[in-house]
């Protein structure tokens, strides 16, 4: 095992290979507060990549209702139960990662789903839990009253457990963009990666005898276009881009701004130690203890910053960029109330006003002498 630095843990940790960061790292921010669980992302991915034989059960993108939803079943709580997760001292993780907890004979500590665990992708959908202070009181529901939707893809981790688990080196991280891929020519279907990935984002294909995973739509990324699940997102909750190390954060990079500068977007289960690169704006109405377990010690501050977005012109502007263009927007700027998504060279790809102008259309159109019915 090598010693590597994981900034999400605020410390060094053990990993199977030495630290080797790509030239630039694919990353994404998902705003959980805007997701409506329409599953358009799931379908966009499914029809594009996993409509073949043996891929029927695969969901490279899935959306689960937290706290009860999970796909495969209980993938999160099973591993959390196994992990001696310890606690955080400020922003430093004092527990052990899945690499540091690897039992004798294993490269990582992993939980292997049984095949029936893949049979309930919608389990727990829209089931509520927990109590919201001051909210929903009058409804006196028989159950508790919070839930939120967690959209998940592969995190294209800086320290992928799938890659570390493969005894054949069939999984690689592309040096040009940090996208993690299974070499379909080299894979022999041992399913070590399926066991190793704590997010369960590698799937075994029983027809081709190989493991397959989310490819971050790399053919689109190579053309400067965001992946399918991003551009088809109805709730406009997603933004893809590039993330720097915290010390290299650039204020004109939208992902760096959201993650490193505004600190509003957080990794999922940072305690596992993979430095995952999909960052979540945590839900604002969920008990903090739950958010902390999922998103780490930054959860409270992130919620506060999000609630305050209306008073933070830059943050409000950044949030308007989500879903505004099909193109990857490696840079951004704000001029007054307008936010601009820019390409590498600073040319404008899209301009979005912070406040959309409001047009009121009269019910009776004098020009065409017709009455129109507006839906409420």
């Amino acid at each position, binding site marked *: 095992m090598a010693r590597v630095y994981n900034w999400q843990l605020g410390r060094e940790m053990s990993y199977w290979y030495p630290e080797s960061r790509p030239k630039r790292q694919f990353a994404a921010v998902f705003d959980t507060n805007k997701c409506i669980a329409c599953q358009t992302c799931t379908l966009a991915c499914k*029809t594009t990549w*996993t*409509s*073949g*034989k*043996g*891929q*029927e*059960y695969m969901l490279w993108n899935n959306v689960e209702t937290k706290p009860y939803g999970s796909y495969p079943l209980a993938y999160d709580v099973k591993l959390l139960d196994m992990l001696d997760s310890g606690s955080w001292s400020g922003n430093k993780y004092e527990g052990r990662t899945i690499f540091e907890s690897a039992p*004798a*004979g*294993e*490269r990582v500590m992993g939980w*292997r*789903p*049984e*095949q029936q665990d*893949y049979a309930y992708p919608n389990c727990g959908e829209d089931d509520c839990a927990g109590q919201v202070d001051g909210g929903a009181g009058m409804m006196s529901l028989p159950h508790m009253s919070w839930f939120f939707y967690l959209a998940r893809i592969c995190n294209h981790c800086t320290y992928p457990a799938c890659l570390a*688990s493969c*005894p*054949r*080196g069939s999984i690689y991280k592309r040096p040009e963009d940090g996208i993690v891929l299974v070499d*379909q*020519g*080299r*894979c*022999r*279907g*041992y*399913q*070590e990666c*399926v066991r190793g990935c704590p997010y369960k984002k590698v*799937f*075994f*294909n*029983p*027809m*081709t*005898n*190989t493991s*397959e995973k989310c490819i971050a739509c790399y053919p689109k990324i190579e053309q400067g276009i965001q992946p399918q699940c991003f551009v088809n997102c109805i709730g406009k909750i997603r933004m893809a881009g590039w993330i720097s190390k915290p010390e290299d954060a650039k204020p004109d990079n939208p992902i760096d701004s959201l993650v490193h500068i505004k600190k509003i977007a957080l990794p999922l289960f940072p305690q596992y130690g993979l430095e995952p690169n999909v960052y979540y704006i945590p839900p604002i109405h969920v008990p903090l203890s739950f958010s902390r377990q999922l998103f780490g010690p930054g959860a409270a501050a992130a919620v506060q910053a999000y609630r305050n977005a209306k008073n933070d012109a830059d943050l409000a502007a950044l949030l308007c960029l989500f879903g505004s263009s099909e193109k990857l927007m490696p840079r951004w700027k704000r001029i007054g109330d307008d936010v601009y998504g820019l390409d590498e060279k600073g040319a404008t790809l899209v301009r979005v006003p912070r406040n959309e102008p409001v047009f009121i259309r009269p019910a009776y159109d004098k020009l065409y002498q017709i009455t129109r019915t507006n839906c409420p």
Partner: protein
Amino acid sequence: MRRLVLLAAAALLAGCHRAPTRTNEVVSTASREISTDASSSIWDAAPEHLANLLPQDLVDPRILKPTTAEVRVRSVHNGGEIAFRLEWIDRTNDDMPGPARFLDGCAVQIPRGIEPNPPDPRMGQGGRPVEIAFWRADWQAAVNGRKDTIQAIYPNAAVDHYPFQAKSLEGTDAQKQMETRYAPARAVGNHRAGPRDSPVEDLVAEGPGTLSPAGARQSRGKGARTNDGWAVVIARKLPEGLGPNKRTQIAFAVWEGSSKETGARKMRTGWIPLAVRAAR
């Protein structure tokens, strides 16, 4: 009285079925014919080697607890091909691939070069390759006629539609191309990915993690369930330089699917001497 007669007959029959000669190395006897049928009479005269299996506990990921204890090996050759019959106890038939479902299998490993000091038994070493012939239960099922469909593995699977099965594409080349595109491992020619036409795969390795497909196919084989396990015949071309009155080394491995054995998680032997006998 009748019972006595029956008992006597049974004793006589048992007497006919001679216990095999046991040798402490694998001895390959000459046979005019090579058959991949484990119940063929060609195996009757061949001595048997009982190979003890050890857990692969040297390279991560490993198994720490032993599963399959031993494999019974017989061998025959005809000067061109050498065949091995491997028999072992395995009460469960694991021939269905799937997530978290693993497959019964076995393998025969021989150094590529015939030399007094064989390479590292852990699948060879840099510059000193080993040749491996690998048999697997699901490939056998495919060769025996199991269909290349998801319903053959999950009988109750319901699939509304595969895009390549659109009516407008029926019977066209575009359809075949599209179906292949949705099976990436097949599209890039991964031998492992099927559809299979042989239950045996030829491989070479120069150490753990280096296993790759051999250039050309040189093995064939067949496996069948027995009352208490598997009997598998793997026949391959006699290695270069190996022939009557020559010796080399051989190693075996067995995977027990229901113990989730796959890849490096296997039971294996170290090198065992292999003596090739001349025809009498």
